[in-house]
């Protein structure tokens, strides 16, 4: 993108190094000089929050791996060993367990931000699809991580999720046994899940690198959904503006995160997971972690095994096609009055599916789940393609600078009088 720095090292040593590996220049152009649209709001800080959470999960996870043993007869006891014996082991585990939930809270806000402001539209399709891939990898990592404590929910969660593949005609059973490394979820399953759980975060980190590369190549979207026309008028340098704003948002997020770690560390978990895995008895009410609940509701709402599994995977896969399903040329919901209404209906439906997934699968819950599931797909497959043709959008501002000035007429005066108070 235009406006990137032409970094010139000052010292002789730095020049020698830069001419051989332009590493400092890369950091300078992507984290210091990188032009940031000046109208970004706090929803744009979730990329930094997610990067921070990935680091938190990798660091706390490496620590836990130093004390954990992925062997079915001792795995549950090893987690209790971490909780009771290891110095600050309780903190490490609560950071990691709640960190997974925080990661998903942040990623859902990040995704809905993208949906609202049309961040998936040209030229950001690849950026968006990389994001969907990260989301899938996160789900796989979270699921396998939840199996490792080897409690009742771990065991039966693993059983249910792996059995999804048994819905595949003809080869389903063979595939499931291959996944398990046996005839049921057991020690081989635990061991391979641990290996993959350790691998996946580094794959996520790799795709995050591509995600950021793609972002910095095409430039950030913004709340007005319009392109940067003049780097000098429409943008500010990443440092200090975005760095400080992101840091501030991360600090606020840490406070929120800490409240869970220190005051209600098991609120987002399930008490049944403090019962050791028992292959002979399924808990009465089995639910996945909260971040999977909407998809769980979709799975249960379809009265057909294969159909339910396909619908569940399709609910995620449809996101990858979103750049082409949304036919509107206008990105931001700010200038799309109809889309804005449908966006909020969709948000309610998505959260509603989450609630329904946590409830027993009978009576009214099933009926509402079916209605919501149909609406979920209709939003992507019917409403968004049609809206582009029938919606009368509002006029877009001429530039980002115009949009900012139109909004903040009063602050200009105050800012000029006392710039340090801004």
């Amino acid at each position, binding site marked *: 993108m235009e406006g990137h720095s032409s970094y010139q090292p000052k010292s002789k040593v730095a020049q020698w190094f830069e001419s051989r590996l332009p590493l400092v220049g890369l950091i300078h152009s992507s984290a210091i000089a990188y032009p940031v649209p*000046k109208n970004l709001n706090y929803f744009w800080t979730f990329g930094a929050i997610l990067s921070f959470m990935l680091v938190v999960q990798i660091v706390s996870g490496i*620590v836990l791996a*130093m004390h954990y043993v992925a062997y079915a007869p001792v795995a549950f006891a090893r987690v209790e060993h971490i909780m009771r*014996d*290891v*110095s600050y082991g309780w903190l490490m585990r609560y950071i990691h367990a709640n960190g997974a939930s925080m990661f998903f809270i942040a990623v859902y806000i990040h995704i809905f931000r993208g949906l609202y402001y049309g961040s998936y539209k040209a030229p950001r399709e690849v950026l968006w699809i990389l994001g969907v891939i990260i989301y899938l990898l996160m789900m796989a990592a979270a699921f396998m991580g939840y199996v490792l404590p080897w409690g009742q929910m771990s065991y039966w969660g693993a059983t249910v999720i792996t059995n999804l593949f048994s819905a595949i005609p003809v080869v389903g059973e063979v595939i499931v046994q291959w996944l398990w490394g046996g005839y049921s979820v057991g020690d081989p399953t635990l061991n391979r899940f641990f290996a993959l759980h350790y691998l996946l975060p580094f794959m996520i980190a790799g795709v995050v690198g591509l995600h950021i590369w793609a972002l910095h190549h095409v430039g950030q979207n913004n709340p007005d959904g319009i392109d940067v026309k003049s780097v000098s008028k429409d943008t500010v340098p990443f440092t200090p503006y975005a760095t400080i704003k992101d840091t501030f948002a991360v600090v606020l997020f840490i406070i929120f995160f800490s409240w869970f770690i220190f005051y209600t560390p098991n609120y987002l978990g399930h008490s049944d997971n403090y019962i050791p895995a028992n292959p002979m008895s399924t808990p009465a009410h089995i639910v996945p972690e909260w971040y999977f609940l909407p998809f769980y509701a979709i799975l249960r709402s379809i009265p057909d095994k294969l159909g339910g599994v396909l619908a569940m995977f399709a609910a995620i896969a449809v996101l990858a096609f979103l750049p082409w399903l949304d036919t509107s040329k206008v990105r931001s919901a700010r200038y799309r009055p109809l889309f804005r209404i449908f966006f909020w209906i969709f948000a309610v439906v998505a959260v509603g599916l989450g609630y329904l997934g946590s409830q027993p699968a009978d009576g009214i819950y099933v009926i509402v789940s079916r209605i919501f599931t149909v609406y979920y797909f209709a939003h992507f497959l019917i409403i968004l393609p049609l809206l582009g043709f029938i919606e009368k959008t509002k006029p877009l501002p001429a530039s980002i600078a115009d949009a900012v000035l139109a909004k903040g007429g009063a602050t200009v005066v105050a*800012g*000029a009088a006392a710039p*340090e108070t801004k």
Partner: protein
Amino acid sequence: MLQRGSWTDDRTGISAVAHTETSQKATRRDFLYIATGAVGAAGVAGMVWPFVSQLQPDASVLALSTTEVDLSPIAEGQIVTVQWRGKPIFISHRTKKEIEEARSADIASLRDPQPDADRVKAGKDQWLVVIGICTHLGCVPLGHQGAYDGWFCPCHGSVYDTSGRIRQGPAPLNLALPPYAFTSDTKIVIG
């Protein structure tokens, strides 16, 4: 104090100077800047400590810190090895000849001078209790071997006498003594 240059406010196009280069007076912004940095540094340090601390021996390891040994089955002239905190402990039931050899050594000629009497409990000359780890690079020496009939380390050829003192080879120090006490004539507690 901190000096920062002027910038142009991007929204208004008005140039502003936060701190003039010549002003040495601390401003409220300087205070906030340093205070924020200090709080941040304290927070990071507070968070780094648990991550360092978790590597320490945990409660289950500390619980293994004492070992009780019954000496009665150990015959004269026999060396047994017991485990304490994951380390080998040599318990040598020394013969009269071995005790005599240990006592008669010329202290001044030793690399790590120490009389035999300091290496055993008073009145328990026959019992030598040492940590069975060569002070060179941590291998476990072999008993009743070497020129002094004490221990010989197979890794780099250090030779210890019947008091576990270094006599030849690269090791710098005598075999270390673990903390232990006799709880009766035939029982010791290590650790």
